[in-house]
């Protein structure tokens, strides 16, 4: 009765990334949680939530103040490895509207250095609707490259060619040996939702209702492992 759909096509790159075609564009799902578009030499990372630690500290919960440093370290490592022409931060780069003020001088300098010699684009999100005040880079609400539309929050319903963040997808993978929960990409090869890149960003289970209706068919999860991205089918994913 149901039409058997062809399996998703993907290849694991030597670096551990998952390569697939996204609405016609070649895309690489990186172990770091960033997306790499080789044709455009564009690196895309969503939901950095910089200064989440200090945001909690201001309310009396003293989380280690190293989250910004850690997130930027991982971003710098990707930039070092890939030498992008374009770096796109896909919204909620700051955890709240006052995060930029709390940024330490050292971290601000680190972020500025990352922008040197390339284009840095801040796609704005709900946590950071105004974009940065003093930091370099261009501010955009949406961006089109390689036939893809990059925006922070996924449009409801089907949206072929969309690359978004906002939802912080996480996969609870169930296998005979047990269960493990990891951040993940989620895609039906027409659109993709990126995992949160920030060190303290939590995850929302992809089985949550927030993902309902986004995909034309049961999507594939690219679960972030220690050294590679694991392609996991829908039926191995459990609700929380």
């Amino acid at each position, binding site marked *: 009765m149901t039409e058997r759909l062809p399996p998703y096509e993907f290849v694991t790159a030597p670096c551990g990334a998952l390569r697939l075609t996204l609405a016609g564009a070649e895309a690489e799902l990186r172990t770091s949680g960033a997306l790499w578009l080789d044709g455009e030499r564009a690196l895309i990372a969503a939901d950095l939530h910089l200064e989440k630690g200090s945001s909690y500290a201001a309310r009396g919960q003293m989380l280690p103040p190293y989250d910004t440093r850690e997130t930027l370290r991982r971003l710098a490592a990707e930039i070092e490895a890939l030498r992008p022409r374009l770096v796109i931060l896909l919204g909620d780069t700051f955890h709240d509207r006052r995060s930029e003020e709390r940024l330490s001088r050292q971290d601000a300098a680190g972020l500025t250095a990352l922008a040197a010699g390339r284009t840095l684009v801040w796609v704005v999100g709900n946590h950071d609707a105004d974009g940065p005040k003093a930091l370099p880079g261009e501010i955009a609400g949406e961006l089109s490259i390689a036939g893809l539309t990059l925006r922070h929050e996924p449009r409801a319903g089907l949206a072929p060619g969309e690359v978004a963040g906002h939802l912080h997808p996480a996969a609870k993978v169930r296998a005979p040996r047990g269960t493990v929960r990891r951040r993940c990409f989620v895609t039906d090869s027409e659109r993709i939702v990126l995992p949160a890149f920030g060190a303290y960003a939590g*995850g929302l289970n992809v089985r949550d209702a927030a993902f309902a209706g986004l995909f034309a068919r049961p999507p594939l999860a690219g679960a972030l492992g220690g050294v590679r991205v694991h392609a996991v089918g829908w039926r191995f994913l459990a609700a929380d």
Partner: protein
Amino acid sequence: MADAGAQLPDLLPPKFKAWFDGRGWTARAHQLAMIEQARAGRDALLIAPTGGGKTLAGFLPSLIELAERPPANTPAGLHTLYISPLKALAVDVERNLNAPILEMGLPITAESRTGDTGLSRRQRQRVKPPEILLTTPEQLALLCAWEGARLLFESLRCVILDEIHTLHASKRGDLLALDLARLSTLAPHMRRVGLSATVDDPEVIKRWMAGPAGPGAIELVTGPAGAQPIVDMLLSEGRVPWAGHTAQHAMAEVYEAIKRSKTALVFVNTRFQAEFAFQELWRLNDDALPIALHHGSLAAERRRKVEAAMARGALRAVVCTSTLDLGIDWGDVDLVIQLASPKGAARMVQRIGRANHRLDEPSRALFVPANRFEMLECQAAREAIAQNVLDGDPPREGALDVLAQHVMGCACAEPFDMLELYDEVRTAGPYRELSWEDFERVVDFVSTGGYALKTYDRFRRIVRGPDGRWRVRNGEVAQRHRLNVGAIVSPAMLAVRIAGRRGSVGRKIGEIEEGMLEMLDPGDTFVFAGQVWRLMGITNLDVLVQPANDHDAKMPSWGGSKFALSTFLAKRVRQLMTDQDHWRVLPSDVREWLEVQRDRSLIPAEDEMLLETFARGRRHFMVCYSFEGRLAHTTLAMLLTRRLERLGAAPLGFVCNDYALAVWALNPLDGLDYDALFAEDMLGDDLEAWLAESFMMKRAFKGCAIIAGLIERRFPGDRQKTGRQITFSTDLIYDVLRRHEPDHLLLRCARADAATGLIDVARLGQMLSRIRGRIRHARLDHLSPFSVPILLEIGKERSPGQAGEIILHEAEEDLIAEALQ
């Protein structure tokens, strides 16, 4: 001796003497001795067997003092504080204490206060306290963190610590010791009284409970020796099984033993075993005997029902876990049955004490070993109990995460001076050796998180005022602290509820640990609360089930035994195994098993460790019989496999139980230098490297983060959110902290916890030094009798947590297989 009352008549006021006489009782010597110590203003530790009037002995001095107090026109205030490890025990003692108060017509109020006490009563108790307050360590911590603490406690004269042996050697004990130090500051004339039935080393307890005057100031009072318990071993007509932990083979005989007794308590080690034994007994229950079930996962009202039925004498047996270990007085229990391994001698004495609350009659107990090693263990425990030598918890150094919670609590109550508080803290037993540097770090942690990167100075939780005293920043911070008080961190629990029609949610039947559910899919059946249920689904924090009629439920494994075999009992098991003359006390099939082991492999000397190697199928096995408990064995196996990997042996897997561990590999394991393989330096770099990535470290870190107040369990006005939940994981914090500040206070706490608890490095270290140069290798061309039990466990275990990558890999490969169909 028992009539010592005659020699010291003046200790007991006439009213009390008359009350004793009216009941046909004579005050016991230790009860009078406790009055004497109180009159002299001394602290006391009373060790007396169950049924010896221990609780009354603890309270008599306070009752007398309060009865003799001249009437005053000011409110009397709190006089005596009683601390029990269990809420139920506090409530039970309230009932028992009010009997003499009412019968003698004493003008004394005694009230309990637990987490279950209504809000209005708790609020009233703070403003207008009873003379005697019966409560738990957590409630005390809460009261100590209240602004009115000084006023509430300044009248306090006595604190009674019941079942003190269960309190001291834990983080709970650390917190209680700190709160006692606080009480001594607020009420310098307060006496400390400890009560216990089973203590192997009173000096350890004294050191823990001592106040500013030190352990030397505590008088030891001992009660009469109770009658020696009669402990039998069930020598099943069916032969003792090689392996397994359920004692299924003996269930019919257990049932017969229940039939022959008035009321039996059937103790097991895990909730899973409780459910299993309960099912099995009801399968056999042709006489429809009232047999009930009691364990910590059952809903509180279900447990209360069972307890009430028990008190009425309406039950013939209760299958229970450690929830019924402690002192609630149940009248008519005349038999205690221990199903499967006792794990430790002191715990057994405690459990056996549940039977028969009369001093002069022996308690009766029946051990039911589930396998052959357990047969040795039961025998060793019997002998230890007969000789009255017990295992006990070693003294511990106070945990710094607990200290952090306490410092915050102090700041919530009133501003503190750092030096004064340091001196006060060091009067608490577990913190006597605390260095000023560590204390400073803890205060810094409480204030700003204690990070090397000083960016949080403007967000301090406690601030230093111009008077030099530290106070809490504002009322909201204090309120949040009070919501998170306590040193017990339990795993995430989900409520089990009956699913109604059209998705409605029905009655709650209990709680289960989150991890257990990972093995069940909707539609699966499992046994819980003595019934078979079908899992319908899981919502946010509820597990929805419906009754199922299946007889063969998919039985979730609730993990191995929660308790590890005690070091003390392990040593006795090794002695029994080594001493061939001793074997005659064992049943013939177990004796035969030992004899075949001797002939086909070897029996090591007491201080040696036997290591066997053999091939089986295409695998090479190495089995070590180290008898150090499952936790230490698991750590050892992890470290050994790392080393074997480096030696090119290609290890494939391992399995552990309380007695032994087995490793198997692709390449032979018998040409190795075992002394080098088991060298103690494996606890250095190898351990560090493994530990850093280990899920056990992450779990330990989470516990410390919660206790220290880095992560809050509850927020004010916290409601269960419906809809989206973004989970915020302490693992993320752990990873970031480990990379950027590996010496942070909380990582130190987590390492210390993992080393003593989850991975038992301390015990492993002692063992490695014990067997140095004493490994006896037997190279076999077949299995040995000893190796069978452990090999039978292969395949039954899941490897938790650290197998994350493997799990991802498995799911992925299945997907590929599916795609290629």
